């Protein structure tokens, strides 16, 4: 073991994040690709950078990899400042979007590449390559060329190639984008399991919310070069702070409500077109002036709908304007005076499909459990005001 690696390992103390970004920013010409950004990824966890294209997630990954230099800020990997190290010296593993397996090398040569560059002796290189191919279930494909493999197999080779050098961190750049749906779900599971077994700190870039939700310990939602929200998948899904987050992760009904009054520990809000009613209560939110308009997000799976006859007298009413059958659920579109966009509601199918179906035009009562309606931080746009 060289002195440098000994030092690197000794500096990993308890609680030291696997990756720390401190005020990292980057512009290309006059375009700010990344505003000053800071976040920590705890050692051994998988963190997703989630956002639409152009949100800065790829720029962030490329800065961590060392392909781009940040304009300012620091990149610390296992507590060591790596901001200005070239990619070669960062000891990282990376899986590229299109895998980038060297087409002129066999699977075994691809996997062994990192060891060969590090001048690991031949016997050890062969042993480690074989072990890695066993781990990704491809021992019999060692002598094939990448173009002879399926997408999923190429993905596994790319993973093996990135892990064989025992890197200090793994970077995944939209690694599942090229696979079809079934294979993608299987690979999500496999990658996650492997990552947990090895306990390697991992940064995953994706625009696929489902991938981020299923694979991550932590999600960083980004948009237009900024971090919007950071947290565990459940936290970010259950407590979206902004309209963007609530709509990018899953589906949300965004409703502009009026503040009817402040109560202890929360606010009483009223749906548009519901002026006479007592409204509903949202707990644990900052105080807003009575009469002002605020945005509330309710997930379609949290909206409960029952035929108007069975609904409580105080429940707000809506009319079914559309219906889609989706196997496990009914998806209903609901219209309500005062709302310019229809609401979406899911209804679980628990028995014969017809039992839970509702005809278009039917009047229904709406309800939701306290705590499932979220007050968003955004100011309502003019289009939200009914």
């Amino acid at each position, binding site marked *: 073991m060289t002195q440098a690696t000994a030092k690197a390992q000794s500096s990993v103390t308890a609680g030291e994040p696997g990756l720390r970004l401190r005020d990292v920013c980057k512009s290309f010409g006059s375009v700010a690709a990344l505003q000053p950004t800071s976040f920590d990824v705890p050692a051994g966890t998988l963190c997703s950078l989630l956002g639409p294209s152009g949100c800065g997630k790829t720029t962030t990954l490329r800065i961590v990899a060392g*392909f781009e230099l940040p304009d300012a800020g620091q990149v610390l990997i296992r507590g060591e400042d790596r901001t200005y190290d070239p990619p070669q010296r960062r000891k990282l593993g990376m899986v*590229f979007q299109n895998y980038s397996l060297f087409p002129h090398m066999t699977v075994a040569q691809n996997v062994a*590449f*990192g060891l060969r*560059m590090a001048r690991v002796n031949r016997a050890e290189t062969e042993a480690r390559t074989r072990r890695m191919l066993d781990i990704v279930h491809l021992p019999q494909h060692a002598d094939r060329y990448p173009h002879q493999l399926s997408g999923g197999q190429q993905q596994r080779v790319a993973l093996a*190639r990135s892990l064989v050098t025992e890197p200090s961190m793994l970077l995944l750049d939209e690694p599942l984008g090229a696979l079809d749906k079934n294979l993608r779900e299987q690979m999500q599971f496999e990658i996650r399991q492997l990552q947990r077994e090895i306990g390697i700190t991992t940064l995953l870039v994706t625009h696929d919310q489902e991938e981020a939700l299923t694979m991550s310990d932590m999600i960083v939602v980004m948009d237009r070069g900024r971090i919007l929200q950071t947290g565990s998948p459940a936290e970010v899904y259950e407590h979206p702070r902004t309209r963007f987050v609530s709509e990018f992760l899953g589906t949300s009904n965004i409703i502009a409500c009026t503040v009817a009054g402040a109560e202890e520990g929360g606010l009483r809000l009223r749906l548009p077109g519901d002026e006479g009613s007592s409204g509903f209560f949202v707990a644990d939110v900052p105080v807003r002036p009575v009469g002002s308009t605020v945005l509330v997000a309710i997930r379609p799976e949290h909206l409960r709908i029952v035929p108007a006859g069975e609904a409580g007298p105080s429940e707000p009413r809506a009319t079914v304007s559309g219906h889609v059958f989706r196997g496990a659920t009914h998806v209903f579109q609901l219209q309500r005076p005062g709302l310019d966009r229809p609401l979406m509601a899911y209804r679980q199918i628990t028995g014969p499909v017809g039992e839970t179906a509702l005809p278009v035009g039917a009047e229904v009562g709406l309800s939701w459990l306290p705590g499932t309606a979220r007050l968003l931080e955004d100011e309502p746009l003019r289009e939200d005001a009914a």
Partner: protein
Amino acid sequence: MTATASWRRLERRLPTLLLLAFVLIFFAFLLAPIVFVVLVSFGDSEIIAFPVTSYSLRWYHRLLEYRPLLDSLWFSLKLAGASAVLAALFGVPAALALARSRSGLADLVSTFLLAPLSIPMILLGIALLYKLSAIGLGISFTSLLIAHTVVSIPYVVRTVVAVYRGIGRNYEEAAAILGASRRQIFTYVTLPLIGSGIFSGMLFAVLISLDNLSLSLFFGSAQTNTLPVVMLSYLQNQFDPAIAAIGTVQMVIALVALLLIERTVGLKFMSSPS
């Protein structure tokens, strides 16, 4: 009923049939002279005449007897090979830098390197003659080689830029993150991936050099006469099918080279703008 149906079918297909006819006539017009040359080369007649009445290989025997034609072909091949190698040595590093650069200067340099394609060869010949004489090279093999290299560089640069852009940055980045130094990346990843581009660029350069008359006229001497020069002077004195025979040999060389290019990177790289 069926009669109207078939008439309407014909009506629908008429434009396609007309286009097909036009294309066939056009190709016949282009290819006829070449077929003519090949046929004449296998003729038995003393002069270039068509139609060919009897066939023989006498004009190919004549090529073996009359040395200047084959000697100059051999000389042309060596010159073309040497200039292609030199063009690769200069052109490949330039192409690698230009393909990845985002600066405006790169466009300028790229235009400059491709310029010999758009300058009339005669002008280039005169300019090079002045320049090379001024630095003491004058009419020599070195000058001839330099002139041919200048014209070969654009072909190498174009193919290598196209192939290198086509492979993208990710392979090299993957190698870098796996710990490969710049030199290792070039040796183990870049070079194998752009090898086909270098090869076909060089083959194209060879073809261009073999066919280049104007530059060779400026710098050729008795010892350094290329095939086109010798063919031209031969034609001034004789008008026999030996010219057709050497022309056919030249065409075979070109066809083989083009097939090789098509097999490696595909001819599209040469026809599409880089």
